[in-house]
């Protein structure tokens, strides 16, 4: 009971703060936080692969970008689509590509898996980059945000920033809860077993490929949810959403936050976005703020060096450090 309470405290505090946030602010910070929560969903989807199953993918942005393009391309040119079919359709497109990529890439392991997932993502990137399908390098605009219409009644207006904010927050909580339950289930334990020792899993009688394939497809679908949300938020998509920079960034969020824990992915997304915002701040960095990637990269290198288990591992690291320094005090 106490362990459960301790495990739930941090997520509940974060949810409380996020729920109250729109009461305190509007405008830029609200939109910024919406964006970060979308990134957190994206990071959670990758955590299912990297942290839970031990599959390091460097092509995760493909699913994010494909769902974003699907959102725009499937929306009618003159009028709004209904969210209740557009959302499943966008997620479905991402899941379908993940099903295909997973079927081929999961036959490889380790560094080969990284390269194959990257190759499939770059393939998707160049389809949008070099063809007129999605407006080429310029990208394409979403003219009307989807409506939330059920049985003829308009429920909410996603065009209002606060409404959209709460919609994203609801998605984030749902994804987090889904994964938390999933990872404790029989299916989730098999993924943990595959991460720890796939050979033993096969010897025990688990055909591991279908499990990995299902996890890969689900991760692609959840990345698709993030892509759908970002397309609605920005009202614009371009090929850069599928590029390897984006795949690398989401992997960095996991590393920064700490792998193997769902909270780590959320924390990593927030830390990454805040650091990026901070280093772009001209008041502090003046002209040098143009070179923000340099500062961000350096900071991440330092973080990895001093926090091997990520931000989520800092409390444990701190306790271990205290225990080493003062064994008596730590025990009492």
């Amino acid at each position, binding site marked *: 009971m106490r362990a459960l309470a301790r495990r739930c405290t941090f997520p509940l505090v974060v949810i409380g703060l996020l729920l109250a946030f729109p009461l305190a602010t509007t405008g830029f910070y609200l939109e910024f936080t919406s964006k970060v929560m979308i990134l957190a969903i994206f990071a959670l989807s990758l955590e299912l692969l990297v942290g839970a199953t031990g599959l390091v993918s460097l092509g995760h942005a493909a699913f994010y970008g494909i769902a974003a393009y699907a959102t725009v391309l499937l929306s009618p040119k003159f009028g709004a689509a209904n969210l209740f079919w557009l959302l499943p359709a966008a997620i479905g497109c991402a899941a379908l590509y993940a099903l295909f990529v997973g079927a081929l890439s999961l036959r490889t392991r380790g560094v080969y898996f990284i390269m194959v997932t990257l190759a499939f993502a770059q393939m998707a990137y160049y389809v949008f980059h070099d063809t007129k399908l999605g407006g080429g390098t310029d990208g394409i605009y979403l003219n009307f945000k989807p409506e939330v219409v059920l049985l003829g009644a308009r429920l909410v207006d996603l065009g209002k920033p606060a409404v959209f904010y709460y919609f994203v927050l609801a998605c984030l909580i749902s994804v987090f809860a889904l994964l938390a339950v999933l990872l*404790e289930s*029989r299916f989730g334990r098999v993924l943990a077993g595959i991460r*720890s020792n796939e050979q033993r899993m096969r010897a*025990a009688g*688990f055909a*591991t490929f279908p499990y990995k394939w299902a996890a890969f497809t689900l991760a692609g679908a959840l990345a698709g949810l993030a892509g759908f949300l970002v397309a609605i938020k920005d009202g614009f998509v371009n090929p850069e959403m599928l590029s390897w920079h984006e795949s690398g960034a989401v992997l960095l969020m996991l590393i920064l936050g700490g792998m193997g824990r769902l909270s780590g992915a959320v924390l990593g997304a927030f830390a990454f976005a805040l650091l990026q915002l901070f280093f772009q701040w001209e008041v502090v960095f003046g002209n040098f703020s143009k070179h923000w990637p340099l500062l961000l990269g350096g900071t991440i290198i330092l973080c990895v060096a001093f926090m091997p288990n990520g931000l989520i591992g800092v409390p444990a690291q701190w306790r271990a450090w205290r225990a080493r320094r003062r064994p008596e005090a730590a025990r009492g």
Partner: protein
Amino acid sequence: MAEGNAPLLRARGATRRFGGLTAVSDVALDLAEGEIHAVIGTNGAGKSTLINVLSGEIAITAGSVELLGQDVTRWSQPRRARAGLGRSYQRTTIFPRFTVFENCRLTAQATRQMPWNWWTAASACPLSTTLAREALDRTGLAGLADRTAGLLSHGEKRQLEIAMCVATRPRVLLLDEPLAGMGAEETERMLSLLSGLKEGHAILLVEHDMDAVFRVSDRITVMVNGAVIASDLPAVVRADPEVQLAYLGEVHV
């Protein structure tokens, strides 16, 4: 072997080639319930490859494998495992960061996987928790159930690996050097564990410790360069001049 007692595992003409090298050559083997069947031979004789071929970890080049009367020659390793074939590895193969109990519970879950059930906690799975508890009782690890597996002693880890096999309710156990690296006391404990497992299981034991092999085995097969040169009761094998020349002679001069 008791006459009329059909073997649980039967291999005929089992052959595995790696390019020009024949690691396992035309091996015939029967494993019967209630017996420990030891396979001995010098390093590189093909013992581990034989286990890999029988368990389906690597494909067989020629020959056939029958498990409980079914032809499993073309079956994958997980499918053979679900049909009742458990194995241990020469290098300890466990889940080091899980508890001892969860190590056994997870392998036991393979018997009834229910992967579509995403809403029930695995720790509430009645079948796998029962099987895990039984396996820990049977292997004498019940007292260590809540310990982290990676922090066990070497001997306890080897015991755990066998418990993880037992938890899947196999009929045939293929054990690859379960005594490797063990002290005298640990060896004794493992040997009594193996004798206790004879009931209900057919056991294939690959082992280098000759004293142990002759003490616990009911039948011994000797391999040289991938081929079987003798397969009989321990006393007969010990007296076989060809075996003495090829293998025992090198060790026990």
